[in-house]
Structure formats: structure tokens, C-alpha cells
């Protein structure tokens, strides 16, 4: 029941928030709820057995038995940390949007909770259709969050976001349906949408022939996830969505939603289509590498601070893609770790940008300058997060990026050689931005605010510091003691690598066997 509780508690919260009569306390209520949710997830974490690669806390109830669709949830080391990330970020998001969301507050929090359900569900669903339901469901609240509470071009952005993602996922739906029709081979004549049965399928693959079943399915799935990630060249929805999204929307989007794409590569694509992954993985590596460099270069010349961070996401997600498709321990662990890192550091960056936007109502880099003297605490936090983002050692970003690069080096030194340029370019665009925004003589915005007593720039309030504190804590905790986090996923990842050609979750006995070896 643990996982169901975890997933559906937010729906309940959403309902309560929606019908809550008192407008002034909705935020408090939502915050309380999100913290409860986080506590529940901690409880789950505590129950989780990190020494096992098996699917844990399994819940399986037949749902649509005609098609073998079941309500099938489970958690393993790969999804665990992402679930934690989701529940961890939500209270922060709610507290972070305390001031910035001042219209339709109830609606916003309901949408956020539904979104949380959808995201958690996507991470935990082990049934293809159930997964697809959550996957698509996540679009709707996000669509509203961007569309209602967003900036001036929000409608364009949100529709673009929706259509792009949906365009990708319908092909996946078709692929799922197709695979469901294949399952009778392995289940003895009954259709099944269970991931476990999908894993059992031996999908024909002919190397060199592009139009084989496995290759087609591989690309149908991969396209959906690649758009979500987003992988170059399917990334153009992301900058628009980020720029127009309200701060909490950006944080969820960058923090968790993009991870859905990368996670699903790990959960669906790689184990389901091992031959195709092996055969066509280079395409993704190449796209990832291009994404790293391209995202960084384009980020460098953005005039809008948020857009810059959005493109930096493209670059960072490129790292993750590279890491995953190297298919070795370093790359996979690093990629998984980088997902968390990116969630935390980019989430923090978006929060910070939101805070400054609330004060100045501008995101144009050229209008800033000299903020550091006006907002010292803000600057310090921003610089720390920047360091995490550009992967300075002892911050979380370094661990992920280093392992990914190591993995890519093992895959091919050439890949590592190109990817490593992201290390330099990342520093370049972030620090250049920091320099233009915070340093130098006072810019237009700072001067204006000095003249106008009503709009004086105030440094971070206690609430805002509380919002940032857990993120800063995580930045250093994850940078200093990565094992605290990786230990949960290591076994699963190792198991995946060892059995990548014929992956399935180990049963208890099998697990013991592999450990003895």
C-alpha cells in the first residue's frame, strides 16, 4: 500500500485544496500536505532494501484484465531517488511560490499536487498502460501551470510544450499497443501490459536493417523520451516553456519532469530493446554530445537569464543522455546521479531567478549589473548554486558530471574529449552571466530601485532563505557523501548492466545468487 499511498495522497490533497473554503490559508495547507507527502516518502525510503535489485513494495491488481493491463507499481533503486527528488522538491516549490502565485491559488496548488501524482506514478508504474496514463496525465497540470500563471507568451509556450510532448508520446502509445499484442508469445496466449512480460519478450532484431520490429519500437519509445528530456534537436520547446512558466513551473519542469524522460530511457528503452540500444546507442550519444556543446554555446549568448538556464538544462541533460547510453557502471550511475543534481541545482537556479524577478520584474541580463552589493545573501546563494551547476568539486554536480565523463571515456575517448568541453563552456556561460548580473557597476535595474523607495531591493527574506536552505544542504551533502545516495541505486544499476541483454527484475532467490557471485 505504501506506493499507492505515496502516489495517490497528492490527489486527495488536491481535492482538499480545491474545496478548501479559506483562501488565506490555502498555501499553508498545501505546504503542510507536501511535507506530509515528503515524510511518507521518507518512510518508504526507510523500508526500502538497498541491497536488492529486485522490484520492491510491489502492488499488482488486475485492472483491465481483457488486455492484461494491471495496476502494477513497484520501486527499485533506479526509481527510488527520483521519487525522493519529487517529494523533496514539492514543499520547496510551494514555499518558493508563496508570493509569486497570487491568483487562483487553489487551482495552482491542486494542479501541483496532481502533477506530483502524475510524476510519481510515472516513476513507479510497472505496467505500460498505467505508466502511459501517468505520463500523459503529467502534461495536463503542467499545461495549466504554464498557461495560466505564466508570462506574456505563455499560451504559445504551453501549447508548444503540450504538442511536442504529446507528439512524441503517441508513437510510444502505439509501440506499447504493439508490444501488448506481442506478449501472448511469452504469457501463454494472454495479452499483458506488464513491464515484466515486456522484458521477457524477445523482439526480433536484425542488425543493419532499420525496419525491424525492435528498431522501430526502440525509436518509437526513444522519441517520446527524447522529446521529454529534451534531447537535441528536439529541445526547442524547453526554452520557451521555461521562460514563460512561472517559477514553480520551471522548477518542476527542470527538476522532475525532464527526469521522467531520462529515467524512462533507463527503465524502458535500454532493457526492452538491448540490441537496438547497442546498435543505435551511438545516435543518442552523439545527440547528447551535441546537446552538451550546443546547449552550452547557445546558453552563452542568451539575453534572458531564464532562457540561459533553460539552455543550460539542454546541456546538462545531454550529459545524462550520454551517461545512460554508455551503458557502463560509471555512465549509468553518473547519469542517474546527475538527474538528481540537475533537479536540485537547476531547480535552485530557477527559484533564485524567480526571486529576483519578483523584485525587479525583469530577466534581461543587460539590465542587471551590480546586484551583488545590493543583495549580498542572494548573491552568495546564487554563486553557490552556480558552482553546483558548473560542477565544482564538493558540490553534487561534480560527482555526476565526472562519472558521466568517465563512463563516456570508457565508451569512447573521443566522446569524452568532446563532452569535456562542456566543463569549460559551462563555466563560461554561467560565470559570464554571474558577472553581468551580479558584478560590475550598478545596472539599470539596481539604479532604478535605488531611486524608487517603494521598489527598493530587499535581500532574501527568511522564507526565501528557508526555501534555499535544503537545496544548499543537498548540494553539499550530495557532493561530499555521494555514497549516501548512490548506495540505494548501485545494486539495481549493476544488475541492469550485468543483465542488460536479457534484463528482468531479479526475484529474491536470484538476487541472493548474484550476490554470492
Amino acid at each position, binding site marked *: 500500500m505504501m506506493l499507492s499511498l505515496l502516489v495517490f495522497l497528492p490527489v486527495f490533497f488536491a481535492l482538499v485544496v480545491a474545496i478548501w473554503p479559506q483562501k488565506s490559508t490555502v498555501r499553508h495547507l498545501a505546504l503542510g500536505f507536501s511535507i506530509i507527502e515528503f515524510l511518507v516518502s521518507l518512510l518508504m525510503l526507510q523500508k526500502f532494501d538497498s541491497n536488492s535489485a529486485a522490484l520492491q513494495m510491489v502492488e499488482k491488481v488486475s485492472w483491465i484484465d481483457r488486455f492484461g493491463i494491471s495496476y502494477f507499481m513497484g520501486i527499485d533503486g533506479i526509481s527510488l531517488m527520483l521519487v525522493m527528488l519529487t517529494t523533496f522538491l514539492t514543499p520547496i516549490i510551494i514555499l518558493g511560490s508563496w508570493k509569486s502565485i497570487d491568483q487562483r491559488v487553489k487551482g495552482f496548488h491542486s494542479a501541483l499536487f496532481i502533477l506530483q501524482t502524475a510524476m510519481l506514478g510515472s516513476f513507479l508504474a510497472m505496467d505500460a498502460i498505467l505508466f502511459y496514463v501517468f505520463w500523459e*496525465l503529467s502534461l495536463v497540470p503542467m499545461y495549466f501551470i504554464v498557461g495560466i500563471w505564466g508570462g506574456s507568451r505563455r*499560451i504559445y509556450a504551453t501549447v508548444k510544450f503540450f504538442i511536442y510532448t504529446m507528439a512524441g508520446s503517441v*508513437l510510444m502509445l502505439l509501440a506499447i499497443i504493439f508490444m501488448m*499484442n506481442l506478449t501472448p508469445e511469452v504469457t501463454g496466449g494472454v495479452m499483458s501490459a506488464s513491464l515484466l512480460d515486456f522484458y521477457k519478450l524477445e523482439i526480433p532484431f536484425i542488425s543493419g536493417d532499420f525496419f525491424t520490429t525492435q528498431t522501430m519500437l526502440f525509436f518509437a519509445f526513444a522519441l517520446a523520451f527524447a522529446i521529454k528530456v529534451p534531447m537535441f534537436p528536439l529541445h526547442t520547446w524547453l526554452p520557451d516553456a521555461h521562460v514563460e512558466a512561472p517559477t514553480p513551473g520551471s522548477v518542476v519542469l527542470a527538476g522532475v519532469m525532464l527526469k521522467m524522460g531520462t529515467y524512462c530511457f533507463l527503465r524502458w528503452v535500454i532493457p526492452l530493446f538491448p540490441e537496438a540500444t547497442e546498435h543505435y546507442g551511438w545516435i543518442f550519444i552523439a545527440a547528447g554530445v551535441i546537446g552538451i556543446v550546443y546547449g552550452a554555446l547557445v546558453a552563452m549568448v542568451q539575453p534572458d537569464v531564464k532562457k540561459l538556464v533553460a539552455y543550460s538544462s539542454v546541456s546538462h541533460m545531454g550529459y545524462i543522455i550520454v551517461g545512460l547510453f554508455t551503458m557502463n557502471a560509471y555512465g549509468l550511475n553518473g547519469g542517474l546521479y546527475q538527474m538528481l543534481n540537475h533537479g536540485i541545482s537547476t531547480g535552485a537556479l530557477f527559484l533564485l531567478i524567480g526571486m529576483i524577478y519578483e523584485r525587479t520584474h525583469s530577466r534581461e541580463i543587460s539590465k542587471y549589473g551590480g546586484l551583488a552589493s545590493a543583495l549580498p545573501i542572494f548573491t552568495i546563494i546564487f554563486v553557490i548554486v552556480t558552482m553546483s551547476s558548473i560542477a565544482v568539486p564538493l558540490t553534487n554536480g561534480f560527482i555526476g558530471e565526472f562519472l558521466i565523463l568517465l563512463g563516456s571515456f570508457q565508451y569512447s575517448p573521443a566522446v569524452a574529449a568532446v563532452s569535456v568541453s562542456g566543463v569549460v563552456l559551462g563555466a563560461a556561460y554561467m560565470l559570464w552571466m554571474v558577472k553581468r548580473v551580479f558584478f560590475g557597476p550598478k545596472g539599470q535595474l539596481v539604479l532604478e530601485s535605488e531611486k524608487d523607495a517603494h521598489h527598493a531591493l530587499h535581500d532574501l527574506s527568511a522564507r526565501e532563505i528557508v526555501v534555499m536552505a535544503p537545496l544548499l544542504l543537498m548540494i553539499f551533502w550530495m557532493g561530499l557523501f555521494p555514497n549516501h545516495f548512490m548506495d540505494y541505486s548501485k545494486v539495481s544499476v549493476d544488475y541492469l548492466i550485468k543483465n542488460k541483454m536479457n534484463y528482468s527484475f531479479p526475484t529474491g532467490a536470484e538476487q541472493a545468487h548474484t550476490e554470492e557471485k
Partner: protein
Amino acid sequence: MNSAITIGLSDILLISPMIALFVFSLIPLTIKVLRGNREQNPAASMIEALIGLALSAALLIVFSGNGGATAFNGQLAFDGLTLWIGLISIIIGGGAIVMMYENPATRGAQFSELLFLTLNSLLGALILISAVNLITVFIGLELMSLSLYLMIAMSHEQKISKEAAIKYFVLGSFASAIFLYGVSFIYGSTGTVSTLDLMKNAELLLKNGNHLFLFGFAFIVLGFCFKVSIAPFHAWTPDVYQGAPTPVTSFMATSIKAASFAAFLRIIASKGLIGSDNLFLILQWFAVITMTVGNVAALIQNNFKRTLAYSSIAHSGYVLVGVIASGVSENSAYGASSVVFYLLTYSLMTMGAFAILSMIEKDENNFVQTDDLAGFAKNRPVLALCMTVFLLSLAGLPPALGFFGKLYLFSAAVNEGLLWLALWGVINSVLGAYYYLRPIVVMYMKDGDCNTSPQSNYATAVVVVISALLIIGLGVASGPLFNMIEKSLG
């Protein structure tokens, strides 16, 4: 047919839903006549009609719930298909009647007559659904359509409703004539017009290239295609849907379309046609064209009703995919069930969307543009939410019912190897998403003061909310529902 004609009680019981419909259709009219041509309280009329529908539905469940029965020597089949589509038509028709009660264009001095026509149209639909004999099909079709022509024209103020009626009438009769011509050919080539009989040697006839049969069959199929607005026979649909009063449009787009598809399915899903690849190939092309035409045309519409009309065309295309899937092989009732399920889904969500539109219309000359919906979410949050549910369901987003409908439909198609149809279907649902999102965008993200019309709209609102809840609820519980459908069809 040479055997002795015996009509027993069982026949009467089986057709009792139809009788109930007919009797209840007379009640408001009779009362009006008795009152000296003065309308009684429309609410009372509506309730009488609804009771008739409920009774009819109940009788349908009671007497044909077991399935497999036929009446009048096999002329009317009361099997699972009849049961389910009949229920859908009747229940969704009830929604339309509620809308008629409150919509300014239909509420007027002739409400009793309108109800009479509606119930008779439903009666025609029931005949159409259950008919086995092609002539009976024709009779059902005509009863249904003739009532509709008048219903469309009954809005007193609207010029365009007259235009719509005349267009529908001319084109409908034209198609009926073609259909009938096809029936005569069939009769000429096989000597029978009972589908059951003629399907026995249909395969042979098709294979041998019996031109008469081929022409006849093609005419029949195309006649159905016309009724369910399959491109290129769809051209009447947008105009008529737009011109008709919204409740009538809703009725046409849901109950009538479901009934027509049922009859279509009954013919196509006959096992006699397996092997006639040419027929199915051309139908596949029609399906593809229909989906595409419906969606791309809906994309650039500004009138909301017209958008929904084109969307209804696109959905016909999806359903046709299922119809084809149910026809191409000898599989179980999988494909047919997916069609029935989809029709249920489609009817619910389309009716919901039209109901909200009907509530927004201020008077009978009111044309609601999509942009007019601005601000609806602020003024009517619950209704806007319901509208969102309908639209997202139409777009095929989980966990709404529409998603499962599409899932089963495309799954059936994939199961039959019609991957490319499914592919085209899912691509089209992306196109669809684009225009289904637009009203949502306008409702939620633009400033305006759209509201429901000041007249009371409670009844319609109830219908809307119930449909929305059903869409979500049935979406989650779609498995058992599908099982039930498949069981009763299989």
C-alpha cells in the same frame, strides 16, 4: 421467408422499447392537443419524454439483456450490439432532450412537437440498430432522418437552421436513394435483402467479381458512410451541425451517429466479407482521409460548434478504423466491442461538450466563437473543468475515457495488423490535441466574461457534470465495462 409468419408475445416484448418510445412520444403532443394547442409546462413535457426513454431503456435491458434474441422471424436482432448501442442512443438522447428543454433555440412554442420528433427519431434509430433486413434498415434510417430534418428546421428564428435542414434533407435523400439502389442490386444478385442470408454467399460473389453485387454492396456501404460522415461523404456534416440548434446537433452527433455506426458495423462485421480486400482497403483509405480531413479542418475553425462538427468527422474516422478491424478477420468480438466502446466514449464526451455550448448560447441567433469562451473558467469553474475533461477526453488523454476508447480501438487495429491505420490515428490525435486545447486556452488563460446564459440551466448542468464524472469514472473502470460489452457481443 416462406415459412409461416408467426408473431408471438416474445416479438412484442422484444420491440417493447420501441413501442414505449412511440407511445411516450405521443404523450406531450396529445396533452398539447387536449389543452387546445397550448404548450403545457415544458418541464412536464421533458419529464414525460425522459420517463419514456427510461422505460424504453429498461425494457431494452430486461428483454434483450440476455442477447441473441431475434424478433419477427429474424428481421430484428436484439443482440449485444442492439442492446449497447440502443442504450447509448437512448441515454445520450436523454441528455439531448434535457438540453432542448433549456436551450433558447428549442425551448419555444413547439417543444412538444420537438419531443415527438426526437423520440420518433430515436425509434427509427432503434429500428436501424436492430434491423437485419436491408429494407428494415432503410425504414429505420428514413424514420430517423425524416424526424431529424424537421427537428433541425424547427428553430424558428434561425435562417441557417432552415438552410441546414434543406441541405441535410437533399443530401440525405440523395444518399438514401443511392443506398436503396444498392439494396435493389443486392436483391437482384442474391435474391434476398436479409443481411444474414446474403452474407452466406457474399464471399463467393465478391470473389467472382459479380458486378451487380459489388455495385450494390458498394452503394450500401457508401450510404452508411454518408450517414456517419466519412469523407468524402462528410461535406454535409459541418454545415448541418452548425446550422442546427445545438441540442439537435448534439443528438445528431451522438445518438444518431452511434445508431448509424451500429448498422454499419452489423453489415461490415458479418463474417461474409473477410477476404474482400479491396473493400477494406478502400475503407481504410476513407478512414485515413476522414481522420485527416476532420482534424485539419477543425484546426482552423473559429466557430466552436463547427470545430466540434469537424472533430466529430475525425472521430468517425477513428471509429471506422475499429469497424474495419472488426471486419477483416474472424477474430472474436474484439474489434466490434472496441467500436461500441468508442461510440459510448465519443457520445458521452461530445454530448458534454455540446451541452456546455448549449448553456453558453444566449439566444437562438447566438454563434459561439471559440474566442468567446474567454473568462469562462473564472465565471463557471466547475463547468469549465467539465469542459476541460470533455476536451481532453476527446483529445485522447488519459485517464479520461477517451484515451481508453482510443486504446482499445487502436489495439484492435494493431491486433488485426492494421498498424498503419493505428499510426495514422495516433498522429491525428496529436492534430486533434491542438484544437481541443484551444478552447481550454481561451477559457482559462484569456480574460473575458463568458458565462452561461442567464436563464436557468440547472438540468443541463446536471447532465454535464454527470457526463464528466462518468468520463473520469468509467475511464478508471473501463476494463469491466469493456468486458461486459465484449461478452454480450461475442
